[in-house]
């Protein structure tokens, strides 16, 4: 839908919600918790490169999720707590580009370059 001008947008769009609004209810979840919806958050983090693919994500707030959240928070200049605080959830719900932040385990966003613009510190093993 392309609107030539702001004034041509129907007002009912004010009530628009998106699928990521569901993440609001995850506020306060802590490591070790099992909460309906955490699997969807893992799917989100997988989509943007923060969690490896899995055939089925669980609703457990496990160390993998905590680690992924820390990386996400680092990339988005948030406190890297690994917790689902207000700022992190607000950032996650924002509309965004569909290209992952981390591709093939390589990234040069904040999490990939802790000491400035140098080669990312990744360990690789040739097969």
């Amino acid at each position, binding site marked *: *839908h*392309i*609107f*030539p*001008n*702001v*004034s041509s*947008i*129907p*007002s009912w*769009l*004010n009530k*628009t*919600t*998106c*699928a*990521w609004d569901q993440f609001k209810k995850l506020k306060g979840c802590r490591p070790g918790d099992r909460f309906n919806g955490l699997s969807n958050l893992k799917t989100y983090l997988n989509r*943007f490169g923060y969690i490896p693919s899995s055939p089925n994500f669980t609703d457990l707030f496990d160390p993998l999720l905590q680690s992924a959240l820390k990386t996400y928070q680092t*990339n*988005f*200049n948030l406190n890297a707590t690994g917790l689902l605080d207000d700022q992190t959830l607000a*950032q996650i719900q*924002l*509309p*965004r*580009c*569909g*290209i992952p*932040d981390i*591709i*093939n385990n*390589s*990234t*040069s*966003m*904040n999490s*990939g370059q802790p000491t400035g613009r140098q080669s990312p510190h990744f360990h690789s093993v040739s097969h």
Partner: protein
Amino acid sequence: YSFFPGRPIWPAHRRDLTYAFAPENPLSNEVKAVFARAFARWAAVTPLTFSAVESFRSADIRIGFYAGDHGDGEPFDGVLGTLAHAFSPPSGHFHLDGDESWVVSGDLRSAPLAAIDLESVAVHEIGHLLGLGHSSVEESIMFPTITSRTRKVDLAADDINGIQELYGGNPNGNLSPPSSSTTPSVQEREMSRNGAA
């Protein structure tokens, strides 16, 4: 700034790139002008040029609005969420979510919550088409998220440094980016306030 793995770029013999719009998306000249302005912002700071052509199949960059599953394995998700995606060079695929409420002009502050500024997203995705990944610099065009009802079209130093690491600068010097005829940028408003415009 960041690059895609392997730092893919358009090869040296392809610096004058063409772009075209999917024939199934009849777009007004006003909408096409938005993309032209977005391309011009990158052309101003690189040796690259961009010109619109009619032939979608033969264009270097192919732009289309698509809803839901559109065949590239990365289905769009309806209103808000994922807005667009573009592939690294030399793919040239540039897809925008057809379910979004794309706005071409006007003061976005008075727009409904779901309104997304088309030019802002176009400038970002062109960065991907040229080889830039996402940046953690919030002021940069290549920061991955954009708040709805927000306009961000000016390349930041981080964007310019990144793209010039890939392609070098504009041989004519960094040219002034094109200004939108509709909504002034922060920089333009500042200049106007200071009487510099």
